[in-house]
C-alpha cells in the first residue's frame, strides 16, 4: 500500500518516515535499561527484547511482580509492550506475539503453544506459507508428525525452531554489553585447549584491549575473561588490579596467573576479554632514559600478590589514634597515598601482640607494684626489672561496656633478658586478673 493510498483511505493520517537505524538504537537503549532486571538481555530486532531472568526473579519479588513492574514502567514511558514469561525464549516470543502474553507455567510450553499459529515459532515467511499450503496452521499439528518427514519436506529450520521453543534444544542468548565496557573477542577456527595456546590468546587479547583503553583514556581495574567452550560450559576468570592499569604485559601476567583454573574441556571456541571496571588513567610520557632500573613502582608487585593471595591479604598498616593497643592499627590499601602518620614515639610497644591476651598468674609484692614473677603456659618467669604501670582506659564514648575497662600495663624483663608486656584488667582491690598481651619490645 502506498502512502498516498493510505492517506486517501484514512483522512488526517499522520505519516512518519521509517528510520530503522534510530529504531535499532532505541531498542538497544531499552535493552540496556532492561539489565536492571537481569544481567543477560538480548536484542530481538526489529522490535523485541529477550531477558534471561533465570535466578533473578526473586530479586523483584517473584515472576508476577517482575512482569507487573516491567509492564508498569514501560507504560509510564509510553511504550506499548506485550510481555510473556516462559521456560524458553522461543516460547515466550510466540506467546507474546501470538498468544495472550503473561506467565506460562513451567513445563507447559507445548500445551500453550499448541493452539498458536505456526508463525509463532519465529519461522520465515516462506516456511509459514509452505506449512499452510499443506494445511498445517497450528503448532500443535506439528508435534505429532514424524520428524524425518517434516525435515525432508520443509528443511531443518522448522524442527530447529520447534525444538528450541519446546526446550528440547538450548538457545543461547547473545547478551547485550554496555557499550561503554571496553571489550575484545577472539574467535577460533579450530577449538583450542592447550595451556600454551591459551597463554598466547591471553597475551593477544590484552594487546588488543590496551589500545581501546588508551583511546578512551581509561585504565582497567577489573578484567573478566570468558572462554566459550564447545560444549557451552563457559569458563571465566576475573582479576582485579590495585590501581588502573594499561600495561598489556602486566595484565596478561595477572590473567595467566589464574589460567590454571580453566578447564578447556573439548576445546574453546571463543575468548572474550572485557574490562568490567575501569577508571580514568591519564597518559604518561614514556621515558627515553630507558637504561637502568625503573623508579620503584609497586603496582605490578601488589597486583600479582593480590591476584595470587586475594584482595584482603595484601595491605599496609596505618596508625589509629586509640589508647587500646589492639585498636592502634588499621589496614589501608597497599597503594594508598603515604600518610606520614606515626604512633606516639615515646610509648614502648611489644613486637608481638597476642590476640586475645592470654591469662597468666602473677604475684606482686605490694599493690600497684610490678609483679615479682608470672606463670605463663606452665612456665614460671622471674622478673628482674620492670616498668609501669601505664594505665589505659577504655574508650567510654564508644560503648557502655568500655567505660568500665581499665588496664594497668607493666613492661617486665625476666632474668634472661626476655621482655613481656603484662596487664592487670582492674585495680588490685577489685580483684584484677593478670594477662600477657605482648612479647619482645622496642
Amino acid at each position, binding site marked *: 500500500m502506498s502512502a498516498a493510498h493510505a492517506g486517501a483511505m484514512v483522512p488526517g493520517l499522520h505519516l512518519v518516515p521509517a528510520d530503522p537505524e534510530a529504531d535499532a538504537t532505541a531498542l538497544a537503549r531499552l535493552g540496556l535499561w532492561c539489565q536492571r532486571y537481569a544481567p543477560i538481555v538480548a536484542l530481538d530486532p526489529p522490535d523485541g527484547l529477550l531477558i534471561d531472568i533465570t535466578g533473578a526473579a526473586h530479586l523483584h519479588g517473584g515472576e508476577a511482580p517482575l512482569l507487573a513492574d516491567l509492564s508498569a514502567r514501560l507504560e509510564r514511558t509510553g511504550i506499548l509492550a506485550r510481555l510473556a514469561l516462559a521456560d524458553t525464549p522461543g516460547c515466550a516470543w510466540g506467546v507474546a506475539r501470538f498468544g495472550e502474553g503473561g506467565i506460562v507455567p513451567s513445563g507447559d510450553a507445548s500445551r500453550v503453544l499448541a493452539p498458536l499459529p505456526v508463525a509463532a515459532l519465529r519461522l520465515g515467511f516462506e516456511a509459514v506459507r509452505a506449512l499452510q499450503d499443506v494445511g498445517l496452521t497450528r503448532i500443535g499439528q506439528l508435534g505429532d508428525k514424524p520428524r524425518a518427514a517434516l525435515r525432508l519436506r520443509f528443511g531443518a529450520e522448522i524442527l530447529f525452531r520447534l525444538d528450541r521453543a519446546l526446550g528440547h534444544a538450548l538457545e543461547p542468548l547473545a547478551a547485550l554489553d554496555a557499550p561503554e565496557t571496553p571489550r575484545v573477542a577472539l574467535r577460533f577456527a579450530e577449538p583450542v585447549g592447550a595451556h600454551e595456546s591459551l597463554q598466547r590468546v591471553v597475551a593477544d587479547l590484552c594487546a588488543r584491549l590496551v589500545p581501546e583503553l588508551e583511546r578512551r583514556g581509561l585504565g582497567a581495574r577489573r578484567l573478566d575473561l570468558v572462554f566459550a567452550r564447545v560444549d557451552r560450559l563457559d569458563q571465566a576468570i576475573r582479576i582485579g588490579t590495585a590501581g588502573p592499569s594499561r600495561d598489556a604485559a602486566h595484565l596478561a601476567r595477572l590473567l595467566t596467573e589464574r589460567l590454571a583454573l580453566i578447564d578447556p574441556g573439548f576445546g574453546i571456541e571463543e575468548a572474550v576479554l572485557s574490562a568490567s571496571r575501569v577508571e580514568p588513567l591519564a597518559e604518561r610520557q614514556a621515558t627515553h*632514559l630507558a*637504561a*637502568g*632500573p*625503573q*623508579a*620503584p*613502582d*609497586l603496582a*605490578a*608487585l*601488589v597486583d*600479582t*600478590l593480590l591476584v*595470587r*593471595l586475594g584482595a*584482603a*591479604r*595484601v*595491605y*599496609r*598498616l*596505618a*596508625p589509629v589514634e586509640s589508647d587500646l*593497643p589492639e585498636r*592502634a*592499627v588499621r589496614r589501608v590499601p597497599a597503594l594508598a597515598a*603515604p*600518610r*606520614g*602518620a*606515626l*604512633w606516639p*614515639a615515646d*610509648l*614502648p*610497644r*611489644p*613486637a*608481638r*601482640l*597476642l*590476640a586475645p591476651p592470654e591469662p597468666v598468674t602473677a604475684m606482686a609484692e605490694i599493690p600497684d607494684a610490678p609483679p615479682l614473677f608470672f606463670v605463663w603456659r606452665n*612456665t614460671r618467669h622471674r622478673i*628482674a*626489672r*620492670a*616498668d609501669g604501670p601505664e594505665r589505659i582506659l577504655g574508650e567510654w564514648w564508644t560503648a557502655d561496656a568500655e567505660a568500665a575497662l581499665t588496664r594497668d600495663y607493666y*613492661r617486665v*624483663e625476666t*632474668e*634472661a*633478658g*626476655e*621482655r613481656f608486656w603484662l596487664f592487670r584488667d582492674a585495680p588490685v582491690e577489685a580483684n584484677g586478673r593478670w594477662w600477657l598481651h*605482648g*612479647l*619482645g*619490645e*622496642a
Partner: protein
Amino acid sequence: MPPLRSHDVPTLDALRRLTDRAGTGSEPADPRALPFGVAGLDAALPGGGLALGALHQIHEGGPRGRYAATAVLFAGGILARLDGPVLWCLHSRDLFAPALARVGLHPDRVVYCETWRDAEVLPAMEEGLRHRGLAGVVGELTRMTLTPSRRLQLAAEGSGVTALVVHRLCAGEAVEPEPSAARTRWRVAPAPSEGTNRRMGRPRWRLDLQRCRGGAPGAWIVEACDAQGRLAVPAGLADRPAAPERVQRRAAG
C-alpha cells in the same frame, strides 16, 4: 654525559652514613654492604657490613623462639636503614606494627601480605625479590630447605633486593638449622639489660653470627635498635666479644 637518574642521587641518609663512617675512621666499606655501626660486628662481615642483595637468615634463640619477637625487631632495624618500600610476608597476625615504627621502619614503607604457610611465603618472597626498587623482603618461615634458599639467594642477587628470613621455630624443633644458601645466619636472643634499681634499661640483644660466607662467626652483646634502627655497643662491654669460648667450640665442631 650519562643521564642523571634518581637512584644515582645520594640521599641524605646515604650521605649521613658516609659521614658516620668517616667519623669512625674505618676504611671505606663496600657500597653493597650495610654497616651496623658496631666495630667488631662490621669487621667480622666481608665488605664491612651486611651484604645487600643477598639472603640472610635470622633465628631467635631462647624458649620463645616461636614468636621471634627479637628477630623481627633486628630485621626491622636493618630495613629501617635502607631506602625504599619493604614487602613483609606474614606468618600470622601477631606482628605489632608500632614496634617496627619504633625501630625506624615507617608504616608507610611496609606492604604486608598474609601468607600463612611456608608454601605461600616462598613464592611471595621470590616475587618481591624480582622487583627492583624494594629495599627488602622479609619472610616469616617455619623452615627453609636448601633449594628454596638457593632460589631466594639467586633472586636477591639478580635484583639487588635484600632478603631476610625470620625463622619461627615450632615447639620442639631442633635449634640447629638446616644447610642453606644464605649469605649469613644470625641467632638473636634477648640479653639482660643494665637497669638500676629494678628499672629497665635499653634492651640488649645477644647476636650470634653463626655462619657467614667469607667472614668469621662471632658473638656480641649489643644494645637494641634505636629509633633509626641503629645498634650500639654497651658502654661496659665495648671492644670485647661476648663468650668467645662458645664461638671457638662452634667453629671446631
